[in-house]
């Protein structure tokens, strides 16, 4: 079935003309750079002299590159905590906010606020919250009689960073879940109530199955975001001269390219990251067919 009006004759010209900026931008910006990255990953290039063909060298070097291994492990650890965190918490928040109470829009705005504020600015605030001797969080812990925790020390930094990233992503997930929740017809709940279903039954038998499309979508988006996460992590864990105590793959790509004159190696890392994400997406879509319920 087709929707909308079909462009005719002269309109077709204007259609193409008006779409041209986006299409050209997409071709040059996205496809162009993807293609360039693929080609560069087979080159030895320092950006300033002529690129030299390197074959698979950049890829084989990754197997012995301990720093890349550490970065990859960090990215995977981060994603393993971040993705379930975002899905569960934003669903929970969405359910709480999916009701008619006074000032609901204020709550929704508060939860969505992190999505529209600058990550760098909020990371600086979080830095102050997490401070060991001066931080607000430790102030509360100490006033409750606890021992101060060094939140951003290397052993705790990963967890602290995951918390901030989840906090920053709840808003977006919440919006998607709210859309999914409001799409569930009221009658289902009413019918279930008539049949004597309690709250838990309603939640697990109606809500959960019917928001699986949202769960799927939020999982997908947050997985992609997890593998690309950089801003909060870097701002919270940076040391002098561009070093980071929790180096992730994106950080490693940036550092190899811009600090170490190693664009070929950086491209190979980017491609490897893309392959991992694509593989995960393939698994997700396979799972979607099995588990996601569409009405």
């Amino acid at each position, binding site marked *: 079935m087709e929707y909308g009006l079909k462009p005719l004759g002269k309109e077709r010209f204007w259609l193409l003309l008006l779409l041209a900026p986006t299409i050209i931008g997409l071709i040059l910006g996205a496809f162009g750079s993807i293609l360039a990255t693929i080609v560069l990953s087979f080159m030895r290039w*320092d*950006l*300033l*002299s002529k690129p030299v063909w390197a074959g698979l060298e950049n890829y084989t070097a990754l197997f012995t590159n301990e720093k890349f291994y550490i970065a990859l492990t960090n990215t995977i650890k981060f994603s393993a905590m971040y993705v379930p965190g975002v899905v569960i918490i934003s669903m929970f928040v969405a359910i709480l906010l999916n009701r008619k109470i006074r000032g609901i829009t204020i709550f929704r705005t508060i939860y969505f606020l992190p999505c529209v504020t600058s990550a760098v600015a909020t990371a*600086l605030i979080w*830095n*102050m919250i*997490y*401070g*060991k*001797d*001066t*931080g607000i969080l430790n102030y509360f812990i100490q006033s409750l009689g606890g021992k101060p925790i*060094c939140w*951003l*020390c*290397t*052993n705790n930094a990963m967890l602290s960073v995951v918390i901030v990233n989840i906090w920053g992503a709840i808003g977006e997930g919440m919006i998607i879940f709210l859309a999914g929740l409001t799409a569930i017809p009221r009658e289902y709940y009413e019918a279930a109530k008539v049949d004597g279903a309690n709250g838990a039954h309603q939640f697990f038998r109606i809500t959960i199955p019917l928001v699986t499309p949202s769960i799927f979508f939020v999982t997908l988006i947050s997985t992609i975001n997890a593998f690309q996460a950089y801003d909060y992590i870097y701002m919270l864990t940076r*040391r*002098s*001269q*561009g*070093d980071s*105590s929790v180096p992730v793959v994106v950080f490693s790509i940036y*550092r190899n390219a*811009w*600090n*170490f*004159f190693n664009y070929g190696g950086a491209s190979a890392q980017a491609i490897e990251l893309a392959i991992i994400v694509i593989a995960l997406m393939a698994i997700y879509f396979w799972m979607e067919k099995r588990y996601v319920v569409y009405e």
Partner: protein
Amino acid sequence: MKRIVLLSVLIASMLLSACASQAKQGPVTISFMAWGDPEELAVWQQIVDDFQAANPNIKVNVEVSDWDSYWTKLKTLLAANTPPDVFAMDAPLYLDYQSRGVLLNIQPYIDKTPGFLDGFYPVTLEAYKLPDGYYGLPRDFQTVVLYYNIDMFNAAGIAYPTVDWTYDDFRTAAKSLTIDKNGDGTIDQWGFTSDLWDMELFWSEAIWSWGGEVINADHTQTLVGEPIAREAWQFMYDLMFTDKSMPDTNTSGQYGGDLFQAGIAAMTTIGHWAVPGYATVEFKWDVAPMPISPSGGRATSVNSAGFVVAKDSKYPDASWEFIKYCLSQTGQARLTELGLAIPVLESVANSPVFLEQTMVNINQQVFLDSLAFARMKPVFKGYDEWASTIGDGMAPIWLGEADLNTTLDTVVPEADAVLAKNK
């Protein structure tokens, strides 16, 4: 449709002819790029205005970006073959660019200007001199000195640092200046603060004055793990973890800025670039030379920023004229007013322009006297990656998470591997 085609052809031809005519006759426009704070742009603009008034045939477009974006932007412009004609260079990174063939050899221009380099501090020229001539020239330099908070010294009743200060005196003072003011178990005032990631602020000075080396002369071997260097490292380690008079990275990080400037640390070691920032503080402070090591040695680090010309510059003559102006008495005096650095011309450095800067009343002479025992920050191809290998590798120590000696044992071979790769 026809009209659109016609119109675009017309516009294109106009643009082309405009470009063509500009290439033929003056005035020519060159671009100049440097790193710096927004305030520096105003000073550069001032220099450019003066220069343009003296050279009506040359126009200069100035662009100033912060340190990090500067290098990213520069590399992108070089890769796209549209580099700025003249751009700022940090001496340690000079060979990373020169060896990749993107810089112009300006020796022919220097030859055409007899006596041009006569007034320069010789040590500042060292970094840029290559067997086939200069591919860049220093514009100003930095010597690292000891800064101290006079108010804190007075409050603790400790004598100010002198030329005769040893590292032991320094250590004792740092200890007594470390105070837990309210007795809650956390330190509120630190004796000393410095960043130990980069060598320039403290650790290369310490290793050199102890009698050690950072790297060998032909840049094939990292020497920070030699026994004598380890003694210097041990000194820094003890400051931080035995005396606890210097905050570790976790502790200093939570203040989110310079602890000396924030009035939290009593001493620091840093270059002249810190002066304008420190000039704004409430407390009184001054500078003293770096202390003397137990073996009687004394050393500091000297590093310079410079000018280079892009090899592909269309206007090398105009670019040289601009550099020449910036390195003249007038240009240097203007740059010195910024207060960020020390002029490369001895005559300007020893004039009131530098010695009696108005923003703050400190002993500027210390920066010049330090040249007597200053060592050049190493300059070689692959510097950035080598320095990062050491800085990143040693970082866990300064977080209090790794052992000094075992870390050195692993970092040195890693750094050597980087040197071998960049040969």
